[in-house]
């Protein structure tokens, strides 16, 4: 008889984890992974594969897990994904592979993400994911530059290196990984894991040049005309933080989530003073926004020692864009949700420090043309939430530097690069994908775009 429920994954208890930066979810052990894998029906026409943006052949790797053959399992995954330990942790599987699982119709779907994570972790710990040089195609003499080392750039690099291209990734920060390094916190995605997966790419021959700012160190035109690159993939993400443009944003204690998270994650400010980068630690912290970045910032503020952390969001619980699982984790850790609240002003003292966030209460109006109920302010409902730190997590836009220094590159009104579904831009040989094209989205959709662009670049250069 099939077990209806999936196997739970052990987690650090909320009371303990809310004050440390250790990973929350602890992962399956071997026996649990094998048991969970046995739940898979091995469908002849597996719908889960269609749900995966990079089309990992899920039943095949899950079957290998069910037989305890983890070496084969990692090989099957790596055919399609170069970052399984990352995706197994941060993909919204409930909207992707797992949402299509047949078992999910009557019970709970196979825990594909947890199994992918288990396989990747097992492979890393047992040295099963070393790259076999014989499986990388011989160099074909063509050079491809990838701008940005986030998930999209890494995925594109992986495919192209596999096919024999000489790939160089240019990264502006001192560490490769993009949002995986500076954005997603250690307690959701340990940085050692990200670096391990990037090491795998290097073993395949991918060069990673950090501290290189494209638009300044080299322009796109120079990469192609002077540096000898045959094609370029732009994957610079959505890294420019938005502010609300309400009064008081200049007070000390006001952060964009990007800065707050970069200080803590990339610069390890949570270990200050051992790491030299400081971060302001508020006692009462308001995080404005309802996406995953807001959840990450709120949970990080709690771990740094805040007494109260509020999520201030202008819509209701059902409209929160964050993953349900992240909202759940945040609640368990004591994050307080101020829903249907919209900030109108940040209040500060004479020394220039935040003392409060003035909000107005909202109600949901009639559904608009898109079917979404837009929030409407309730008259005279203003009040001041007493806080000493405000973190803005209301979204990010594209950094304009490449656009400014590459006049031939077409961008839309929002500054996103215009590219077709294969990543082709208005410039021949120049491709783009991930958040720089779509606006802020998910890790896996960025990876999918990187893979499609790699295929298109291959076709372009081989014709």
């Amino acid at each position: 008889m099939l077990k209806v429920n999936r196997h739970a994954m052990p987690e650090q208890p909320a009371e303990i984890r809310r004050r440390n930066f250790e990973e929350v979810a602890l992962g399956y052990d071997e026996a649990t992974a094998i048991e969970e894998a046995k739940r898979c029906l091995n469908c002849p026409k597996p719908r889960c594969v269609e749900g995966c943006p990079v089309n990992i052949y899920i039943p095949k790797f899950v079957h290998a897990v069910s037989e305890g053959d983890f070496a084969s399992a990692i090989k099957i995954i790596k055919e399609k994904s170069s970052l399984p330990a990352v995706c197994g942790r941060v993909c919204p599987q409930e909207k992707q592979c797992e949402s299509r699982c047949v078992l999910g119709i009557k019970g709970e779907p196979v825990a594909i993400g947890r199994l992918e994570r288990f396989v990747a972790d097992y492979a890393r710990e047992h040295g099963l994911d070393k790259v076999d040089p014989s499986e990388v195609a011989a160099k074909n003499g063509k050079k491809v530059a990838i701008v940005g080392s986030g998930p999209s750039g890494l995925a594109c690099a992986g495919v192209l290196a596999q096919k024999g291209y000489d790939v160089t990734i240019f990264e502006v920060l001192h560490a490769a990984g993009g949002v995986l390094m500076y954005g997603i916190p250690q307690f959701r995605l340990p940085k050692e894991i990200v670096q391990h997966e990037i090491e795998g790419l290097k073993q395949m021959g991918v060069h990673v040049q950090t501290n290189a700012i494209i638009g300044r160190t080299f322009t796109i035109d120079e990469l192609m005309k002077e540096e000898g690159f045959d094609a370029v993939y732009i994957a610079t993400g959505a890294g420019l933080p938005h502010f609300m443009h309400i009064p008081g944003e200049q007070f000390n204690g006001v952060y964009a989530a990007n800065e707050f998270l970069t200080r803590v994650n990339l610069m390890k400010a949570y270990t200050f003073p051992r790491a030299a980068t400081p971060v302001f630690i508020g006692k009462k912290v308001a995080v404005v926004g309802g996406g995953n970045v807001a959840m990450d910032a709120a949970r990080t503020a709690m771990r740094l020692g805040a007494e109260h952390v509020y999520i201030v969001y202008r819509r209701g619980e059902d409209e929160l864009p964050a993953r349900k699982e992240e909202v759940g984790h945040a609640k368990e850790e004591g994050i307080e949700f101020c829903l249907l609240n919209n900030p109108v002003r940040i209040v500060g003292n004479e020394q220039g420090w935040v003392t409060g966030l003035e909000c107005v209460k909202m109600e949901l109006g009639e559904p608009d043309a898109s079917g979404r109920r837009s929030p409407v302010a309730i008259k005279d409902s203003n009040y001041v939430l007493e806080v000493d730190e405000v973190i803005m997590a209301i979204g990010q836009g594209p950094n304009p530097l490449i656009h400014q220094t590459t006049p031939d590159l077409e961008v839309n009104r929002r500054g996103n690069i215009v590219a077709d579904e294969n990543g082709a831009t208005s410039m021949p040989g120049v491709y783009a994908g991930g958040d720089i094209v779509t606006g802020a989205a998910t890790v896996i959709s960025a990876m999918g775009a990187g893979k499609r662009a790699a295929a298109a670049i291959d076709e372009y250069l081989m014709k």
Partner: protein
Amino acid sequence: MAKILDKKLVSPAVYELVIEAPLIARKCKPGQFVIVLSDPESERVPFTIADFDREKGTITMIIQVVGNTSRHICEDYEAGDEWDNIVGPLGQPSEMKNFGTVVCVGGGIGVAPVYPIARAYKELGNKVISIIGARNKDLVLWEERMRAVSDELIVCTDDGSYGHKGFVTDPLKAMLEKGEKVDYVIAIGPVIMMRNVARTTEPFKVFTAVSLNTIMVDGTGMCGGCRVLVGGENKFACVDGPEFDAHKVDFANLMERQKMYKTQESVEWGCGGACKCLK
């Protein structure tokens, strides 16, 4: 990696460092800056490029020891050693054209970033009048270099131990009051000095640029930590600046924001384990 080719103490607690950075030297323009992260436990800190040699592939920086990180990167490294990371050139270059008569004002170590700008203005055919200032004679920086690129050089010391006694704003104000032709002013130095220069030139409606030294993390526009109010608008000093119209800058807010990490900065061992206290 950024190799330190030469390091010398130019005045008390102020070092001049020549760094091997060919990619930066090839592209940098006056007014731009770099970010240094010397080792994994250290922090990212911005420094203006004070000079560059495109052929040798070097850039020069003047760094004053004011806290743990500046002390660490100056004193724990010698010529021949390498910092792990340097990135640049960052920021918008200074506006380059023939304005006519340009007054270049440098205060303290701010003289160093003014130097390449003054040199470029001179090369563009401007009449360059430079006013450099320091607290006392020992702290006057790069006098000869500035003299070499200026039509006129005025040196000021707060205590009168050398040159004109008083602040850099004194000769500037005298010049403007006398009705001398001044088409453009650029001032770099401590925030108070830049604010005072702005106040001096404002009644005379002479365009004045200042290079703002805000707190920065990435230096590429992704965090907004360096934001400043310019004409009531939020600007990011690292990508929109660092130079701005001095008459539009909210200096009071800039000074408040520089105090954001005062408490942490005073933690004597905020040094990434590089300081003696952890050993």
